[in-house]
């Protein structure tokens, strides 16, 4: 019997082994859980993007325009001319493989087409075939292949399995940024109306009502007023946010996720308390806008033009209100847009002042052109100058680690300020291992518009490297709170933690700041902003902290 069982065929009749074909010959199968639903025609139409229609990625017929190939070729030609980076990235990859295993989607899903080098190759193969003599002569041997419907579908599947996080680019000796290739890939797909709904509808909402969630101005105000009551209940202090106030010192813009999605809402209350504190103590007037009610910009995940269009309203509002400069909330991709594109895209905003913190006198040199300052940098500056009364022991129930969001980390080198703030408002802080943080940080797995619900398998697998590092500090140090400065993170990390490390909850930094902030006139706090009891000074965080119920955990 043992003899017979030795044969592989008899061992099992089920095919347990993967195909051994090269990537070009491995067909792409579009699987549930790994893709986001197609964009609703109305959203595509609102944005004046072409070919709005009902279509389904799972159907054979994607209802493409007849001349779709010409449209793609023309789109490629145009972009090869306009964007030098695209042309260079197409030409210079030596396939050294340094980037291959650096992508969280490859690490988590195990799918080789998620290796950055292969992701780029999806489009490079067509470039070689149709835009280079080398490819024309050597064909498949030279890594070239013709553009077919299957190739187009493969583009769509894998360019929406890249979160444009840029981790791979950190390791490429030539500085090839696969995120930029994905950006171009998605632009090309948009020429055929092939967007996903989780991007197209928020963008269209933002265009129509000012924010991704499509919340109208009165509901925006309604939410913040509700927070005013909540804050009063918890602190005994009634804050008084102003809206669209002309002549205020500073305009504050944050992602709408903070206003409408838990646990970002607690961070939002944090901002409100901080602004109240600064007004009471130093007379600083910060105003909110119901017009520029979105800091995020999913236009970045659509096309340059759409991104520019959405971004312009921040400046328009700053100009209308006559503020000195703009303060930006805890967001991820919003800062990529601001730091990398805004200065030249809609700027320079000469009508605004070069940002100076009126309380400390600090000049924010890095924001000279954009006139927009990150709130964590602003708060770090206040703490550094001793302008905030803080009692970090109020966060003693927490053992905190920090997730560097890809965009502030790799898009603007923002590493130390968040840690500085956390360490000043919390007594227990532990970093994750070095190759998982700062410029090497792992993406949450849901960035660049992939934070829909239907692609949960993709998100959970892509978020594995991040969750794995959190699990390590949880097991080693008892970390129970994951802090982050991104609204998408605050929305997507709770389910990610729920699946991989259920002991760990998620927070924004300004929630931690205002937990520790001693507000003039406050009552003795018994609960925090979440309505949870505040720990006794002596209590042990390991015993104290009970994670809130989260169904699905």
């Amino acid at each position, binding site marked *: 019997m043992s003899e017979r069982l030795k044969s592989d065929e008899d061992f099992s009749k089920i095919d347990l082994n*993967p195909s051994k074909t090269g990537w070009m010959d491995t067909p792409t199968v579009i699987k549930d859980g790994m893709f986001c639903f197609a964009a609703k025609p109305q959203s595509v139409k609102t944005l004046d993007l072409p070919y709005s229609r009902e279509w389904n990625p799972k159907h054979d017929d994607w209802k493409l325009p007849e001349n779709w190939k010409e449209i793609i070729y023309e789109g490629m030609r145009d972009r090869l001319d306009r964007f030098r980076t695209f042309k260079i990235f197409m030409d210079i990859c030596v396939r050294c493989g340094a980037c291959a295993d650096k992508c969280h989607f490859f690490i988590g899903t*195990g*799918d080789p087409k998620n290796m950055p080098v292969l992701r780029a190759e999806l489009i490079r193969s067509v470039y070689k075939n149709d835009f280079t003599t080398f490819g024309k002569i050597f064909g498949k041997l030279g890594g070239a292949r013709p553009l077919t419907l299957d190739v187009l579908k493969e583009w769509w599947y894998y360019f929406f399995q890249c979160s444009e996080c840029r981790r791979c680019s950190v390791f490429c000796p030539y500085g090839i940024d696969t995120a930029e290739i994905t950006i171009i890939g998605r632009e090309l797909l948009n020429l055929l109306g092939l967007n996903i709904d989780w991007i197209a509808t928020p963008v269209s909402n933002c265009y129509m009502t000012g924010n991704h969630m499509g919340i109208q101005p009165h509901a925006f105000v309604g939410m913040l007023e509700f927070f005013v009551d909540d804050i009063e209940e918890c602190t005994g202090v009634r804050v008084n946010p102003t809206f669209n106030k002309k002549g205020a010192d500073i305009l504050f813009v944050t992602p709408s996720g903070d206003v409408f*999605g838990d646990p970002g809402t607690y961070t939002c209350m944090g901002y409100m308390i901080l602004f109240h504190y600064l007004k009471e103590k130093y007379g600083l007037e910060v105003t909110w806008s119901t017009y520029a009610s979105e800091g995020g910009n999913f236009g970045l995940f659509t096309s340059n033009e759409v991104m520019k269009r959405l971004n312009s309203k921040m400046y328009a509002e700053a100009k209308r209100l006559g503020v000195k400069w703009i303060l930006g909330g805890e967001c991820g991709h919003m800062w990529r847009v601001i730091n990398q594109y805004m200065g030249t895209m809609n700027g320079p905003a000469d009508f605004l002042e070069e940002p100076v913190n009126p309380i400390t006198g600090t000049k924010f040199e890095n924001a000279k052109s954009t006139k927009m300052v990150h709130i964590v940098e602003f708060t770090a500056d206040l703490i550094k100058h001793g302008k905030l009364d803080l009692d970090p022991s109020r966060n003693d129930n927490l053992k905190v680690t920090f997730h560097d969001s890809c965009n502030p980390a790799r898009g603007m080198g923002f590493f130390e300020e968040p840690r500085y703030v956390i360490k000043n408002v919390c007594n227990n802080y532990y970093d994750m291992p070095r190759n998982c943080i700062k410029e090497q940080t792992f993406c949450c797995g849901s960035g660049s518009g992939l934070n829909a*619900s239907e692609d949960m398998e993709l998100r*959970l697998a892509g978020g594995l490297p991040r969750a794995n590092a959190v699990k390590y500090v949880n097991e080693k140090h008892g970390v129970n709170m994951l802090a982050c400065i991104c609204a998408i993170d605050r929305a997507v990390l709770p389910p990610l933690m729920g699946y*991989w490390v259920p002991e760990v909850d998620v927070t924004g930094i300004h929630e931690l700041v205002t937990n520790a902030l001693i507000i003039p006139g406050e009552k003795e706090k018994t609960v925090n902003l979440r309505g949870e009891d505040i720990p006794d000074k002596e209590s042990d965080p390991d015993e104290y902290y009970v994670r809130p119920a989260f*169904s699905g955990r």
Partner: protein
Amino acid sequence: MNLKDLLEKRKSAIIKCWFDLVVETYPLDTSQFLKKQKDPFANPVGATISQALKPLFDEILNRMDHEAIAAYIDPIIRIRAVQSILSPSQATSFIFFLKKAIRENLRKELKDIEISNDLLVFELKIDEVGLIAFDIFVKCREQVYTIKANDRLNRAFGAFKRAGLVTETMDDTQGL
């Protein structure tokens, strides 16, 4: 030498073979990476598999405590349950590869009828572990679906509801 002693003696070779068989369920580029990269943070999948197989093997060999076994295989299945490139059978069948790993490593010894018979009994234990794996796989999948169903409701509407901005219709959809 009886089977148990033999398995104990050849343990590291068997586990290495088992590990290779498990990672070879992934496409070539992936399995090479899973074998090569030793940093557990750069390679959580490979690290999780290699960390679990040894204690799992010991547990099957000795106490065969169901809870302990579930605790060892949960991390591996948890990963494979969200890796869409694997079918459910591919995701869970790695348990049975232990049979192959043992037979490959005990070719000569299995000529002994007693040892061969003992192995058949031992293999029944592996089958039992396979069933535990199946339970965990289904549990993980159910969890994924629950997370999926609650995801948008929780984050987008939880705050609205607390604020009293939505009252009707949400009640019956919370906490699926």
